[in-house]
């Protein structure tokens, strides 16, 4: 009897202790539970970044913030600390959520936001907050009871809200947060990074003198494409940014050479143009410049070699705007 009581009480007491621990450090546990929250936690802790990139895996993989910072400093004498807050699996809701947090940070002067269609679509936030929980429809006939119970658990227990923080990979996130002031962990968010490093992609590639490329800054006129969902999703982001005094730059990362023609289309340019009228921002579209195969790990994600090359390219293209303002 004694052992059974100890067992049941032991489980209950342990959970009560975990709940107390989570409640006293809820934002910390949130950071362990989600990639974007982890990066926001990084930014909060560092408090020094002036340029922040936001976007999907294409920006996460394709932009090296340290190199970007070095390039600006060494070639253009611009000293701005840069952070890449892009993560894989973005959607409009997640971008909006991140933007709200980033706009609150005073140290951030410039936000460079990926505006590819990959990131602009409806999707779940994927984070359980008391006020912001979206539960999927249950297929069984009494699903609403299950939904109510789940909602009750989310509302009542912080441990449930931050549940993804208990995955094994959260341990790595914990280490990353602890060392966020010392190291740039950006590489470790890239999929297959160990494979890329082991194949020597970093060693083999030495940044060469950059060949200037004039990006497509969009001025085209055209019919309205205001009925598209991508446009309305984009507008939500623009609405959020309307009153900010931070510099906002939208950009579209490069794709493989064979996809360039398809991705670099007129309708998107029309959309940028149309939105530009509502909020004066800079739009740069790199999809029109296809990158060679050896710079990408698939048709739309740069590899380490492409990442270094593109980072240099972007630093070069943005330097005038960052220096003089828009």
């Amino acid at each position, binding site marked *: 009897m004694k052992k*059974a009581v*100890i*067992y049941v009480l*032991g489980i209950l007491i342990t959970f009560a202790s975990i709940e107390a621990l989570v409640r006293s450090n809820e934002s910390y546990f949130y950071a362990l539970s989600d990639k974007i929250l982890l990066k926001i936690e990084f930014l909060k802790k560092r408090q020094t970044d002036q340029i922040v990139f936001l976007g999907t895996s294409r920006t996460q993989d394709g932009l090296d913030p340290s190199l970007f910072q070095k390039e600006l400093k060494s070639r253009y004498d611009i000293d701005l600390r840069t952070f890449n807050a892009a993560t894989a699996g973005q959607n409009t809701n997640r971008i909006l959520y991140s933007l709200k947090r980033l706009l609150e940070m005073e140290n951030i002067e410039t936000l460079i936001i990926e505006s590819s269609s990959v990131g602009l679509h409806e999707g779940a936030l994927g984070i359980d907050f008391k006020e912001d929980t979206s539960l999927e429809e249950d*297929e069984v006939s009494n699903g609403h009871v299950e939904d109510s119970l789940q909602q009750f658990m989310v509302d009542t227990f912080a441990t449930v809200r931050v*549940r993804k923080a208990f995955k094994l990979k959260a341990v790595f996130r914990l280490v990353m947060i602890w060392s966020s002031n010392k190291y740039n962990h950006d590489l470790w968010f890239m999929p297959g990074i160990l494979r890329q490093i082991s194949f020597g992609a970093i060693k083999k590639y030495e940044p060469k003198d950059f060949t200037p490329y004039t990006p497509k800054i969009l001025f085209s006129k055209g019919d309205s494409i205001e009925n598209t969902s991508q446009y309305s999703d984009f507008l939500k982001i623009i609405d959020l940014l309307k009153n900010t005094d931070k510099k906002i730059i939208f950009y579209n990362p490069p794709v493989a050479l064979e996809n360039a023609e398809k991705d670099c289309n007129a309708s998107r340019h029309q959309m940028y143009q149309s939105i530009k009228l509502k909020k004066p921002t800079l739009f740069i579209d790199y999809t029109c410049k296809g990158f060679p195969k050896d710079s990408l790990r698939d048709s739309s994600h740069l590899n380490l070699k492409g990442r270094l090359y593109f980072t240099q390219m972007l630093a070069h293209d943005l330097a005038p705007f960052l220096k003089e303002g828009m």
Partner: protein
Amino acid sequence: MLFNTLTFVLFHFVCVFFFWSAKTLKMRNTVLLFASLFFYGWYYWPALFILVALMVFNYFIGQKIELTASKKILTIGVVVNLFSLFFFKYSTFLAETIVDLFAVLNITLSVPTLNYWLPLGISFYTFQIVAYLVDVYRKEIEAEKSFVQFAVFMAFYGQLIAGPIVRAKDFLPQLKRVNVFKPSSFQLGLYYLIAGLFIKVVVADTLSQFVDFGFQDPTKLNALNAWGTLYGFSFQILADFWGYSTIAIGVGYMYGIELPINFNSPYIASTLRDFWRRWHITLSIWLRDYLYIPLGGNKASTHRNLFLTMALGGLWHGASWNFVLWGSGHGMWLILERMGKNLWFANKVPKILKWLLVFNGVSLLWVFFRATDLPNSIEYFRALTGSFESTIKLQSELINQIILFVVFCFFFSKSLSTKVFLDWSSKKQITVSVAMLLTILSFASAKLDFIYFVF
């Protein structure tokens, strides 16, 4: 009500509370009966009518068989039960097969198809009740006199939907003994419940995402992905069904009822015969006792009996030719194994090679089990034998998940087939259980059914 839902967890603990709060044996069994009916009706209440009708019918037919010892009445009882199974599960399949056969002869037949709902767990409770009637006829057990206890035997919510298939001689006496609360049994039940949920939610549901993707369109897979996905399914189906059975056993323990184990590390088997002694053990025993032996067993036409038993066992899993092929494949293999066991080299083959052969053979036969139909199976076999070149990389999470499961099996499978958990120190018991609960919590987003629910 699915086991991997909060609704079930809440329902179960409320029922356990009422069960042990009840003063008399009769009241406790009544609580169990109503809990089981509520559980069953929760998913689709009209199915309760079928279940209750079969309960009443089988209760009285059991008494009648005992009184008269009449083979004719036994036959009526078995036929009625099998008919209900056939009607709900196989009639559409039969109609479609007839239409297809006539289509080969260029004759177009129009057979009305009945779109009714398949009562959950019908395959399981039909087998259970057929065994009961046969056992009463064989005078191995007495017909149950208490309707409540008989109804609980037929509908106990712990194992009603997907087994284990329990024998009346093991189950019914326990219902007459649930008068003393045993803390160790409750504790063991709680551990089994947690561990079963862990296997289901953390392993099976995660693997299913990769497997569903792979089988949806095998033409997109290269050989490496196809093999990875196939191994993924081998472990998914084990985790899914083993997880369910473990929860069922846990539920039983919490009521002081011991249910038989259904899995005993099946993938370590080095012969197919051994595999079937470890996989879905209660079904294997049922097929042996109520199909293979009545067909003649080892006494006459052994190979025919073996093949028929396995082919029908396959069909029991689902109304499709794929399941028949799956069962027949196992039947053929078992026959070959029997034929080859006396060959001179049979004992000289290293055990590791035998194990590799069995694991890969069983995995290959799973293709028929998982594929939606025969063309899908053929596509999948093409992918398995196709090129290894592809731009799609094998998902590392799939491999991680398989490794995690193998490690879990290595450390915990013994604790889920014995009562060794009770010998662990309190510290170890609590640490393991809390770690499992936290992991379940961190993975608890997928809401997927148990594979065996459709059987």
